């Protein structure tokens, strides 16, 4: 093997820096799933009757469903009775009233992750909701947001404080029967974030949720619901990490976005769940349903995701374009290294007139990683002049990895314009040699080439996140050279 191939191999031998475990006393349900468990979760959270019923409908339906097998990923059958469906730090039993009451151990966990919860630290004007295992431990800047009329709180709190909004919108984008993991989530979800932006309000700061799985043998099933009322605007960020553990852990989340007339949501994710070790042992199974519905005319939603973590990633942030002139965008970077597998992409469903969608997907495969883009562009009968542009690029590093593309296009309206471009490339010896000949170290050269490859996606991220995403790719590709 040549020297630069060696360099590549070193560089992609990444280390996971967020793999520590917080030693905190937790209250967890014993493993197992039954109607009683669903009832117990609901009781634990003092939920209203309608929500319990909704959960039970989901659970009963889930029992009739088969595990989906169509994704291009391989993993041993999951025993759903071996998972614990609820875990919360004990100190959270009654729920904190303010940050002062949050366990210092938890605050320091988030500090270690670079997510300071103390509001004094004014994280560049970003409000954070921190979800630790099954519960939300803190939401910052709540008061300031409240002044603007913005509701940003944990899902549990929203159920208590704003049951009418929950009742009106929950499950209207991703129903409790939608798919196997969405139904499971609906039955057992324990917390998550809730956002409501009232009419005509531009959210005064970025909103952010930080998800952390800590407890062993626990699944994390959170649910996020964001409603952008007419003419409103919000930018929302989501980050994720987990400790290094030998066993696989399940993360099955649901995100629902509702965008009304003239409103806009920008949703950005940097997903860095523990990916497993270099032999493919451990890591998170990230099976997520994310969907946005552009309900009103001239509404817009933009999904931007940078996926570097998880043993298996299986998610398709999608947009249903119902309103006329509505716009859906999907920008994605997915990196798979070692034995990671990702089957990710999007669905753009055009129903309204003059709707348009853009898909930019960048897949990077290294080590034995398998990276699949799977996307659907569907144009409904009434969607006059719908437009889609799709670009799927794959970058391969080394010769053991794989990149796959499955684009599906269904159109029922002849006025539609659909473009699809795809490319597969390698970081070539030529490129590396060229950079190194100019005095750029091999490590910097790889990072530069990969960042260049992802540029179209990174420029969609909010500034702070773009820096984090670049650093994350850097870490993922960094190694001891020379």
């Amino acid at each position, binding site marked *: 093997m040549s020297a630069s191939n060696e360099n590549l191999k070193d560089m992609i031998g990444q280390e996971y820096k967020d793999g520590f475990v917080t030693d905190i006393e937790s209250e967890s349900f014993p493993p197992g799933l039954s109607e009683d468990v669903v009832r117990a979760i609901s009781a634990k959270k003092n939920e209203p009757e309608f929500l319990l019923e909704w959960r039970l409908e989901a659970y009963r339906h889930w029992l009739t469903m088969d595990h989906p097998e169509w994704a291009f990923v391989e993993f041993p059958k999951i025993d759903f009775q071996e998972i614990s469906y609820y875990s919360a730090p004990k100190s959270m039993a009654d729920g904190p009233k303010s940050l002062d009451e949050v366990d210092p151990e938890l605050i320091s966990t988030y500090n270690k992750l670079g997510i300071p919860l103390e509001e004094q630290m004014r994280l560049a004007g970003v409000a954070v909701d921190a979800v630790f295992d099954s519960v939300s431990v803190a939401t910052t800047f709540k008061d300031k947001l409240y002044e603007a009329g913005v509701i940003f709180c944990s899902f549990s709190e929203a159920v208590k404080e704003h049951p009418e909004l929950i009742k009106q919108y929950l499950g209207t984008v991703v129903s409790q029967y939608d798919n196997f993991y969405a139904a499971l989530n609906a039955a057992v979800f324990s917390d998550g974030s809730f956002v409501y932006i009232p009419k005509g309000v531009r959210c005064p700061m970025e909103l952010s949720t930080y998800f952390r799985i800590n407890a062993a043998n626990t699944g994390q099933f959170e649910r996020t619901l964001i409603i952008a009322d007419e003419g409103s605007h919000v930018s929302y960020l989501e980050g994720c990490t987990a400790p290094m553990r030998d066993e696989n852990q399940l993360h099955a989340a649901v995100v629902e976005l509702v965008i009304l007339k003239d409103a806009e949501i920008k949703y950005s994710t940097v997903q860095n769940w523990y990916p497993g070790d270099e032999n493919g042992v451990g890591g998170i199974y990230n099976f997520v349903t994310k969907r946005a519905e552009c309900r009103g005319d001239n509404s817009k939603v933009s999904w931007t995701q940078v996926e570097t973590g998880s043993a298996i990633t299986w998610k398709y942030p999608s947009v249903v374009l119902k309103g006329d002139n509505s716009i859906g965008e999907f920008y994605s970077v997915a990196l798979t290294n070692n034995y990671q597998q990702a089957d990710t992409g999007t669905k753009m469903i055009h129903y309204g007139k003059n709707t348009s969608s853009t898909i930019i997907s960048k897949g990077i495969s290294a080590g034995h990683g398998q990276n699949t883009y799977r996307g659907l562009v569907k144009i409904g009968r009434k969607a006059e002049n719908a437009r889609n542009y799709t670009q799927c690029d794959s970058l391969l590093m080394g010769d053991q990895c794989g990149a796959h593309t499955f684009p599906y296009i269904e159109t029922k309206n002849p006025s539609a314009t659909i473009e699809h471009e795809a490319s597969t490339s390698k970081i070539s010896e030529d490129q590396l040699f060229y950079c190194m000949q100019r*005095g750029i170290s091999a490590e910097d050269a790889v990072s530069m080439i990969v960042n260049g490859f992802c540029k179209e996606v990174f420029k969609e991220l909010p500034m702070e996140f773009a820096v984090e995403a670049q650093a994350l790719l850097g870490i993922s590709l960094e190694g001891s050279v020379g």
Partner: protein
Amino acid sequence: MLKIEDLHVSVEGKEILRGINLEIGKGEVHAIMGPNGSGKSTLSYILAGRDGYNITKGRVLFNGKDLLEMSVEERAWAGVFLAFQYPVEVPGVSNIYFLKAALNGIRKFNGESELDAMDFISMVKGKMKDLDMDEKFLYRAVNEGFSGGEKKRNEVLQMSVLEPALCVMDETDSGLDIDALQIVAEGVNRLRNPERSFVLITHYQRLLDYIKPDYVHVLAHGRVVKSGGPELALELEEQGYAWVDEKVAS
């Protein structure tokens, strides 16, 4: 500055260079000419440290140090620059970012601090003007979508920003029209000084009308078969390379 001694190189068992001897002094310009397949490009890659070549015999000294022991970056930091025959595209990475990373890599090695962003930009813009390059090139991805002439000009721009001690230019004249050739040659001539040496690899005499070499060497079948002054290039132009083959055959 550069001393090549009995250099033998093979690729996949086939011997490409069969005992090259060459000495290049400070401030000198040497042209290496020869027919296709004579080993010219191989020689340039060996000097820059590219993988995939098997050095079976000989050594190369650069300012007294064993060049062949150094990594690709170390050679760049020490002042070896290769202007590529086919400059490589780096999509998504802007020219300005690339130049800055390269220059700072070299400055760091030499124990110098990174250049201030403003100073850097005005320095680069000045050099672009000399090469008749539009400033918009700074913000375009490295060589992506550049015409052949633009790529070559970009190589000379990099060279003038990085200010190497030894410039190896591999067929820089190929693919250039006469105007571009003049601009590139002027750029190179501006860089000539008593401390800097050049190795110009070329197939044609044309480039040497604009960049006057001190020495001309003819490479054929992996050996230097003839060395001389600038007049040797003219001789080659008249006679072609056929006599070289005869000479090697005999």
